[in-house]
C-alpha cells in the first residue's frame, strides 16, 4: 500500500478509536476488542449484511447500521449494545431457531455451533415463537459431506467461499422467502455435482451443523474457519 490512506477517528461505546477510511465499523470495533455479534460475516469473505445481528446505533439518527458493511466516518458516535439492540438480537436468534428444525441435542455440531454459542452469549433462555417445523430434505449424496437443510440459516458463507475462494461456484441460493434454500449446481444432488471439487471449504465455514463431514460424526465435530485467514495471507495478503 503505497498510497496514504486517510484515517478517521470515532467513538465506539465511549472509547475513542481510530480507523482507516476504508474500514468498517465492525473491523474498527474488533481491533479495539469491542465485541459485536455476527453470523453471516466471516473474515476473508465478502460481506452481505444479511443476518442483522451486527446492527449498531449511531448518534444523530434513529436508523440502525449493519456494522459489517458500514464504513467508519469522522466523528461517528457508535453504541454497539443497548437494550433495544439486545432485544432485536435475541429476537433475530429466536426467529432463526423457530424457522427450521434446530435441535441442539441431536446435532452433529452440538457444542461447536455458532448459532448455539450466540444464543448463549446473547442470553437466550427460551424461544417464544412457535417452531414452524418445516419438512426439509437432507442431501447425503456426496461421498464425504452432508447437507442438512433443517439446520441451515441461509448465511450464504458456503456460497461465498465456494465462489470467491475456491472459484468453483457450486453453491447458490434458490427460492424466495422462507422457501429459500442453498443448492448445489442447478439444484442437483451434491454427489452428482460436476463443479464441486470436494475441497470442503463450505463445510469448514458453515456456522451450524447444516454442512458436515461424514467422517466427523461422533468423533470430531469442530469446524476450522481459521484456515481462511491463513489461506488469504498465503495468497498475497488480502485480509
Amino acid at each position, binding site marked *: 500500500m503505497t498510497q496514504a490512506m486517510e484515517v478517521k477517528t470515532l467513538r465506539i461505546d465511549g472509547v475513542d478509536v481510530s480507523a482507516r477510511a476504508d474500514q468498517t465499523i465492525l473491523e474498527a470495533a474488533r481491533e479495539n476488542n469491542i465485541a459485536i455479534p455476527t453470523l453471516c460475516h466471516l473474515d476473508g469473505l465478502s460481506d*452481505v*449484511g*444479511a*443476518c*442483522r445481528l451486527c*446492527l449498531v446505533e449511531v448518534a444523530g439518527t434513529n436508523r*440502525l447500521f*449493519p456494522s459489517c*458493511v*458500514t464504513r467508519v466516518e469522522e466523528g461517528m458516535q457508535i453504541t454497539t449494545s443497548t437494550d433495544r439492540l439486545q*432485544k*432485536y438480537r435475541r*429476537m*433475530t436468534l429466536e*426467529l*432463526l431457531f*423457530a*424457522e427450521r428444525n434446530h435441535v441442539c441435542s441431536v446435532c452433529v455440531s452440538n457444542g461447536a455451533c455458532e448459532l448455539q454459542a450466540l444464543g448463549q452469549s446473547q442470553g437466550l433462555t427460551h424461544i*417464544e*415463537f*412457535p417452531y*414452524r417445523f418445516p419438512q426439509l430434505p437432507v442431501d447425503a449424496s456426496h461421498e464425504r459431506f452432508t447437507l442438512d437443510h433443517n439446520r441451515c*440459516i*441461509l448465511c450464504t458463507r458456503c456460497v461465498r467461499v465456494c465462489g470467491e475462494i475456491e472459484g468453483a461456484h457450486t453453491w*447458490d*441460493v434458490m*427460492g*424466495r*422467502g*422462507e*422457501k*429459500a434454500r442453498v443448492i448445489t449446481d442447478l439444484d442437483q444432488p451434491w454427489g452428482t455435482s460436476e463443479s464441486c471439487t470436494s475441497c470442503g471449504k463450505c463445510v469448514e465455514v458453515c456456522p451450524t451443523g447444516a454442512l458436515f463431514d461424514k467422517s466427523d460424526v461422533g468423533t470430531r465435530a469442530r469446524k476450522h474457519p481459521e484456515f481462511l485467514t491463513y489461506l488469504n495471507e498465503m495468497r498475497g495478503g488480502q485480509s
Partner: protein
Amino acid sequence: MISVEELDQIAETVRTERAQGRHQINVCVAAGCLALHSDTLKGALAERAQSSGISCQVRGVGCMGLCSAGPLVSVEPGAILFQKVKPEDADRVLDSLKAPPAKQHTDLRQTPFFKRQFNVVLENSGKIDPENIDEYIAEGGYRALFHALIEMTPAEVVQEVASSGLRGRGGGGYPTGLKWGTVAKAHGTIKYVICNADEGDPGAFMDRSVLESDPHRVLEGMTIAAYAVGASKGYIYVRAEYPLAVKRLERAIREARRLGFLGSKICGTTFEFDIEIRIGAGAFVCGEETALIASIEGMRGTPQPRPPYPAQSGLWEKPTLINNVETFANVPPIVRRSGAWYSAMGTPKSKGTKVFALTGQVKNTGLIEVPMGVTLREIVFDIGGGMPEGRKFKAVQTGGPSGGCIPEQCLDTRVDYESLKEVGSIMGSGGMIVIDDTSCMVNVARYFMEFCMSESCGKCIPCRAGTAQMYDILQRITRGQAGERDLELLIDLCDMVSATSLCGLGQTAPNPVISTLRYFKQEYLEHIHAKRCVAGECRMAATQAARS
C-alpha cells in the same frame, strides 16, 4: 436525422387527416378493455362502418380511465363516451355519428369521475394510438427532447426538473432533480439510466397503463434524463406479467430509433443514447432498486445494503439513475412547459399530479390522475362515486403492502407525501383500494402479510422469518386461535422487522398491521377475546365459536 420542421410536418399531417371532417371512433385497447375483447369490438366497428359506407376512422387508443365501465369507446368530434360496448352495439355507436347522440348516451366526460381529474401524465392516454409515433408527435411529443438537447445544457435540464419540485413517483418521494444532480455529478464516463417498470403492488396498474397507452412519453423522459446526467445507455425493467406493455414498448423503441430519437446523433446533435428492455421473472422484490440492478446484471434479485447508492455505484458499479415510469412520464411536460408551471400545481411540498389505480369497493374503478392536495374523500366519493348500494365505507388502503389503511375520520387528509405518512400510510406508487364494512381489517392485514412473506427474497432474517411469524399470528387471530400474548408478540415483531430489515420490503412490511392496529384495534381484540369477526369474514375455529 429528423429536424424540428419535419416534426411539425408529421404533426400537421396527422392534424389535417383529423380535420377532414371524418369522425374518429376510438376503442380502448389497453389491457383492461382488451380483456373484455375490445379488439373484437374494434374489428366489428371497422367492419360495420365499411359495410354501411360510413366514412370514419376506427382506432385503437390507450386507457381512458374508467375501467369498470369497459370496454370504452369514444367518438370524436363530439367527445361522446360509450361504456360497456359489445360487438353487437356497433350500429348504435355508428348511428351516433349521423344524429346527435340519443339520451341513453349521456356524456360520461361530464361526470365527476372525469371532471375532477387533471391530466398531465395521462394527457394522451385514451386519445392517441400508442402504436403510432406520429400521433404522439401530433400531441407535441418529442418537442421537449429537441428543446432540451438543442437549447439547454445538461445542468439546465437538471435545474428545470429540480425547480418543478417533482418527487419520485415510485413511492419514496425522493426529489427527482436532486437525484439527477447527484448522478450528473458522479465521476465516470459510463453511466446508466434505468426505468423501474416492475410495478408489483396488489391492485396497482398505473405504470402498466402508461406504458400501454403512451409509451413514447416514457422513452422521451428517459432520453432527456440521459442527456441531463450524461448516460448513453438505458434499461427499462418491466415485469413479465405485462406482455402488452412490453410489446408496445418494443414497437415504440423501434419507431423512436427510426426517427432518430434514440441511437446516435439524436435530434442532429452529438448525443447518443439507446434503450433496452429487460423483463423481470416475477419477483416483487426486484422493484427495489438494488435488487432490480442485480437482476439486470443477470444475478439473483436480492437487495444490497445501501450505501453505496445507485447514484454513486449502481449497474455494473457505474453511476446509475433509476426512476419509476410515472416519474419519467412527468419529464416531457416539465421540460416543454417549465418547472414553474409544474410546481404551480399541488401542495407546498408535493408538486404536480399523481396517478392512482382506484380499486376495491367503490362504484367507479379505474385509473385516475389528480393534483396533489385533493382530499381522499374527493377521490373516493366524487371521482370514485362512493360505495356500492347498501355498503358502508370502512377504510382506504394506499401504498400497497408498504402502506396502510386510512379510516373514515381521516378521509379529509390531503393527498401528499407528508400528510399520508402522518396518518400512518404512504403515498406509494399509487394503488388505492377502497374497503367497505364487509371486509375484516385483520384479514386485510393478514392478506398483505402473506404477500410480503411470499415475496420476501429470504436474504435477511427479520424479513424472511419475521414476516412468516407475523403471518402465522395473524392467521391465528383470524381463526380465533390467538390469545393476548400473540398480540404482544405481533406488536414486538412489527417494531423489530421494520427497524432491522435490510431493504424497503421488510422495513415497510409491518405497515399494514401497524395502521390497522392504530385505527381498528377493536377488531383485533374482538377476534381475540370474543372470537368474533364483526365483518363476518373470518371463520372462527369450531370449538371456539361454539363457546361464544
